[in-house]
C-alpha cells in the first residue's frame, strides 16, 4: 500500500473495480513522510544505476582503445574516441555474416511460428475433432521438457534425417513452440463464437473463417507471439551449437560466443567483444522499447493464466 492517498485516476488504473481506499488517519507527521519518500527515491535511483551502469560502461568501452578499456574501466567518456572496434567487426571479421544469418533465421522462425501456432491454437480452441484433447495434453506435456536436455537428442535426429548443418536444421525445430500454441488457444477461446457464425452460414470453410475473420481479431495475441519468437530465436544459442558446424551458418550468438573465448582476437580486446555484444542487443532492445507495455503485460498475463 502507498503511504499517501493516491489520486483517484491512479487507483482506477491500478485496480479497476475496487473503490478508492477510505481516507486514513494521518498519524505520521508530514516531515516523516517526506523523508521516507526521499529515502525511497534514493534507494530506487541507486538500484537503477546498478542495473543500467553496466550497459553504459559497455557502450563507452566499445569506443575505447584496448589499453584504456583495461586502465580505466569505470569511465563513461573515452579519452580518445575510436571506432576501431566497429571497423574491425564490420571490415575484418565474419560479423556481418553472423548478423545476416541471425536475421534470416529469426525472420523465418517468427513468420512460421505465428502461422503454425495460431492455426493449431484455433483448431484446439474452436474446431471439434476426435483426438483434440489428446493433442492438447501432448502440447502441455511438451512444455515441461527442458531445452538443455534436448541438445544431444536434437543433434541425433538432425543428423539421422540428413539435414545437419543446414538452414533447415536451424529453422525447422524452432518453427513451433508449445507455449505459443497455449497462448493462442487461450486467446481464441476468449473470442465470442457468434463472430464466426455469420461467415460459417455464408458457407466459408474452416480456413477461410480462420484467415479472414478470426486472425485479424487476434492482433494482440499475435504481437505477443512475434515478440516471444523474435526474442527467443535471436537469443537462441544451444540449438544452433548442435544444429550446425559450418562457419557460413554461424549466427550472432554462436559467433559472439566464439569471440569471447578469444578465437578471433589476440589478447583481451574488450572493446571488440563489447561492441559485438552491444550490436547484438540492439534489435531486441528496439523491439523491447517499441512494445514495452505489451512485453511487461505478457509476463503478467502469463502468471494469471
Amino acid at each position: 500500500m502507498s503511504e499517501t492517498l493516491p489520486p483517484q485516476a491512479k487507483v482506477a488504473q491500478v485496480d479497476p473495480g475496487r473503490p478508492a481506499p477510505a481516507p486514513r488517519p494521518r498519524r505520521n507527521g508530514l516531515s516523516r513522510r517526506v523523508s521516507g519518500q526521499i529515502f525511497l527515491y534514493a534507494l530506487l535511483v541507486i538500484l537503477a544505476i546498478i542495473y543500467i551502469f553496466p550497459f553504459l560502461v559497455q557502450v563507452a568501452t566499445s569506443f575505447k582503445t584496448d589499453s584504456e578499456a583495461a586502465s580505466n574501466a569505470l569511465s563513461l567518456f573515452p579519452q580518445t574516441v575510436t571506432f576501431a572496434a566497429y571497423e574491425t567487426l564490420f571490415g575484418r571479421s565474419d560479423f556481418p555474416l553472423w548478423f545476416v544469418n541471425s536475421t534470416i533465421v529469426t525472420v523465418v522462425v517468427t513468420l512460421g511460428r505465428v502461422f503454425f501456432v495460431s492455426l493449431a491454437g484455433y483448431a484446439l480452441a474452436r474446431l471439434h475433432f476426435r483426438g483434440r484433447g489428446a493433442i492438447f495434453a501432448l502440447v502441455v506435456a511438451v512444455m515441461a521438457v527442458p531445452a538443455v536436455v534436448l541438445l544431444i537428442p536434437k543433434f541425433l535426429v538432425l543428423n539421422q534425417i540428413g539435414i545437419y548443418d543446414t538452414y533447415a536444421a536451424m529453422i525447422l525445430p524452432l518453427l513451433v513452440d508449445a507455449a505459443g500454441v497455449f497462448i493462442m488457444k487461450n486467446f481464441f477461446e476468449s473470442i465470442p463464437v457468434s463472430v464466426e457464425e455469420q461467415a460459417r452460414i455464408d458457407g466459408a470453410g474452416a480456413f477461410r473463417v480462420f484467415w479472414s475473420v478470426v486472425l485479424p481479431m487476434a492482433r494482440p495475441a499475435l504481437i505477443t507471439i512475434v515478440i516471444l519468437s523474435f526474442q527467443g530465436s535471436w537469443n537462441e544459442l544451444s540449438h544452433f551449437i548442435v544444429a550446425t558446424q559450418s562457419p557460413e551458418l554461424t549466427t550472432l550468438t554462436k559467433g559472439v560466443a566464439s569471440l569471447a573465448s578469444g578465437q578471433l582476437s589476440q589478447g583481451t580486446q574488450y572493446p571488440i567483444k563489447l561492441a559485438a555484444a552491444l550490436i547484438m542487443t540492439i534489435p531486441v532492445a528496439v523491439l523491447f522499447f517499441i512494445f514495452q507495455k505489451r512485453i511487461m503485460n505478457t509476463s503478467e498475463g502469463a502468471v494469471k493464466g
Partner: protein
Amino acid sequence: MTATVTTPRVGSRNTGIRRGEAAAGWVFVLPVILILGLFLLIPVLMALWVSFSDWAGRGSPLSGSVNFVGLENYAAVTTGGGLAERDFGISLRNIAWYVLLVVPLQTALSLFLAVLVNRAVLRGRGFFRTAFYFPSVTSSVAITILWLFLFSQTGVVNAVLAWIGISGPNWFQEPSGIVHNALAGIGITTGPEALTQTDVLGVSLWEWLAGPSVALSAFILMAVFTTSGTFMLLFIAALQNVGGELGEAGMMDGANGWQRFWHITLPQLRPTIFTVVTLGVIGGWQVFDQIYTGTEGGPAKTTVTPAYLSYEAAFTRQEWGEGSAIAFLLFLIIIFFTIIQRWVLRERGVSKRRAARYEVKGGRS
C-alpha cells in the same frame, strides 16, 4: 444460430455448418504435431536408446553394430569410481551451490523491487520497471560477455572495490570456493578427516562444502541480475491482485508498514513465491549458455554444470552414451521439480491451509 454451441458435438459433427471440421482440425494441428514429434518426441526416444548403448558417434546409433549395454553409462557417472563419476559429482556440487544461492537471492530481490515500484504514487514508475527488466530481454551471450569484462582483473567491479581498499580477485580465473576462503580467513585451511576422507560421487565432503568458486559466484551474481526483472513482473502482478482491504484493516489496528507487509501481504503472495522459487530451481539446473560462452567449465572445473557436462561429454569427448545418461538424469531432476510445482499450484484455489500443507510435503519429499 447458437445451436452450434448447445447441440451435442457428436450429432452435429458431420452435418450443417460443422461439416468438414474434423478434417480441418487435423490439418490445422498437423504442422505442430509433425514438428513437435520429429524434433522432440523422436529425439528423446533416440537419446534414451543412446544412453543405454555403446554408440561412439560414428554411423547411425540405430545401426546393427551398436550394442545395448544396459545401465552401464548411468553407472559410469554415478558409481563408476572414475573421472566420469568425479566430473558428474563436481557438476552436481557446483549446480547445488548455484541453485542454493541464486534462488533465495533472486526471489528476495525481485519481491523487493516489485514492492518498491508497485506504489501507485511513484513518479517514474515505468522508468524504474524498465531499468530493472531490461537485462532480462538481452541474450545470455551478450550479458556473459559484459560480465567477463565487468569482473575481469582490471574491470569495473574491481575498480569499485579498490575505492574501499579491496584488491579484488581475477574473478573468472579463481577456482577457490568462497566457504573455504572464509574458513581460511579464520585460519582453517584443511578440513577434519571425517570430511576429507569421505567421498560422495568421487568428491570428498570437504570439497562438497567448499562453496561456489569465486568464478561461479560471478555467474551467480549474473543470474540474479538477469532474472530479478522477470520475477519482479510476476510479483507486481500478484501484488495488484492482493486486496487492499486487509492492509487498510491492519493499518486501523495500528500495524506499521513492515508488520502489514510481513503478516498481511506476504502470506497472500505465497503461491507466487512458490512459482518463482520452483521456476528459479528449474531454470538454475539448466545453466548452459553462460558456461559455454564464458568459462567452458573452468577454472579447475568449478563452473561445470550438468547441462554443460552432458554437452561436453557427447560433443567434445564423443562419449555419447555418457552424455545422454547425464542429460536424462538432469531430465529426471527437472521433471521432479516441475511435478512438484504443478501439483502444489493446482491445489491453490482450495484453501490457504491446504496449500500450506502441500507446500511442506513438497519440500520434504
